[in-house]
């Protein structure tokens, strides 16, 4: 791996270690068992993660599960007690940070400066030009208010400015901690579209959220955290996809189970107390299942749409650990 090779002329100010051959599925971030302890509380407990190029990696977890602490550590704000991590195979340095755009917790800016000045400061730190600033402000809908002091902004506007700031310097990696926090539905949809557009450009995105819906819609891979421990890590597709999840029960449970197992377009998730959780493939509706079962002679006495698959998994996982 030739990470350090600098193919830009040395007079270019932006000589950073990342713009080498952009090989697909190169490891962007590798976390080796980091631990962070605050007094008696282990906020992050032996976390192991790997993020590859062009993935949209979601870090899912309830409040207090260590998402923000983990992100703070990989950004160099907090030192882990144990363990290590690497960006592009190298330890963290300011040069690498300049190629990462991030939002962490609440938006942080100088209250007495306006949007343009705040973004200029960030552009200076990242050693890029001011050219992108008007475009970014337009894209996040802040262009009209760009001359007003930051402290006059609503929460949604502050969040938008944070997102604009994260994108200054055209970073290769975006780290977003709850980016839709405080936005109205239109704003949430806009952010979702923006993230997907950015991902298409081949950038890697690490998204922390407790909104299962968002993660399922946007992310390609996900890691589930609870109390600092990673409960599950893998691709979103492997969890269940987007088909309908149903709860079915019948008087003759065994027959029901048999029929569902033998059906091509259903998948049995689990059975509990006679209620079967069944995953249908995308094209099929509950009515289809009903018709099919009647055909096979199974009389259904309960048919209900269960919650979405990721949510089920998520809550199940959390319940197991509690």
């Amino acid at each position, binding site marked *: 791996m030739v990470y350090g090779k600098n193919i830009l002329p040395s007079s270019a100010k932006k000589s950073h270690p990342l713009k080498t051959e952009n090989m697909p599925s190169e490891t962007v971030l590798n976390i080796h068992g980091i631990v962070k302890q605050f007094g008696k509380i282990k906020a992050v407990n032996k976390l192991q993660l790997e993020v590859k190029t062009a993935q949209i990696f979601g870090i899912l977890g309830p409040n207090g599960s260590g998402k923000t602490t983990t992100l*703070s550590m990989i*950004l*160099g*704000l*907090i*030192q882990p007690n144990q363990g290590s991590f690497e960006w592009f195979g190298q330890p963290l*340095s*300011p*040069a690498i*940070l*300049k*190629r*990462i755009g*991030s939002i*962490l917790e609440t938006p*942080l*800016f*100088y*209250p007495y400066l306006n949007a343009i000045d705040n973004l200029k*400061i*960030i552009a200076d*730190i*990242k*050693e890029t030009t001011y050219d992108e600033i008007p475009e970014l402000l337009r894209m996040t809908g802040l262009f009209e208010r760009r001359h007003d002091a930051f402290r006059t902004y609503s929460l949604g506007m502050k969040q938008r400015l944070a997102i604009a*700031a994260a994108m200054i310097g055209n970073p290769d990696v975006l780290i977003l901690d709850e980016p839709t926090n405080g936005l109205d539905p239109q704003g949430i949809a806009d952010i979702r579209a923006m993230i997907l557009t950015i991902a298409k450009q081949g950038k890697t995105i690490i998204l922390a959220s407790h909104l299962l819906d968002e993660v399922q819609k946007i992310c390609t891979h996900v890691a589930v955290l609870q109390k600092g421990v990673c409960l599950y890590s893998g691709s979103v597709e492997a969890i269940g996809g987007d088909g309908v999840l149903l709860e079915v029960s019948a008087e003759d449970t065994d027959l029901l189970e048999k029929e569902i197992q033998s059906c091509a377009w259903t998948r049995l998730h689990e059975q509990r107390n006679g209620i079967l959780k069944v995953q249908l493939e995308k094209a099929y509706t509950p009515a289809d299942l009903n018709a099919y079962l009647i055909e096979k002679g199974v009389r259904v006495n309960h048919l209900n749409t269960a919650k979405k698959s990721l949510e089920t998994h998520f809550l199940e996982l959390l319940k197991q650990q509690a």
Partner: protein
Amino acid sequence: MLSLYVLSLSGMLFGVESFVNKIAGDASRNSPIPIPDFSLYQFPYVWHNLSYLAGFLKVFPALILIVFVAAEYSYRTNRLQIMMGLSRGEYFVTQGLIILALVLISVLILAMWVLIQGFLHSTELSLISIADKSYFMAAYALEIMAFLSFALLIVTMLRRSGLSIVTFLVAYYVIEPIIRFYVPEVVAINLPFKRIGSMIDVPNSSLMQLFGLNFKTYIEYQDLIVVLLYTLLFLGISYWIIRKRNL
């Protein structure tokens, strides 16, 4: 607040002569011994005199520094800068630059007033008399710098505006005098504030000489070195804290 400092410093340096002369004038009317009308503003003594007096106002830039740096901590903008790729060393340098800016402003005001008053009131104007003893200005710069380094250390440790101001003032006006009282002479003259202040000692004047008091009219090398060491020590500790701290 900066303008307040500038105005008060300027005002003091300008007005103190008339103030002192008025007292002297009143006194001489009442006493049997004629007290000569002495001028503070003669070159070259003016350097020493005004540097000494300006040293009394060094609390102001210290407070300005504390407020400014504490604001960075309370708005968490230090976190923003480090997240965006500023190294911790570079961040420390920005704090150092604030100190330098304050020192520069203080020295410029001093220089301006010294020159103005000197030219207005001096009897003999030769290049030598103007330049002589101007090293007091450098000592003044060091005095302010050391003082501000200590202030930076306090605010870097405590991170809060009000608490830092109170702690700093208490350390300067209360704690160190108390320690000085209890501790043997050798240690007492080496404590930071005393050393910083004693670089530029009370200037000699004919009035003092009348009473047989004789203060230093020059700056000792030992003072310089000790104060420089203190400055480096304070700045070094601040740098170390910034590097190690969890934001």
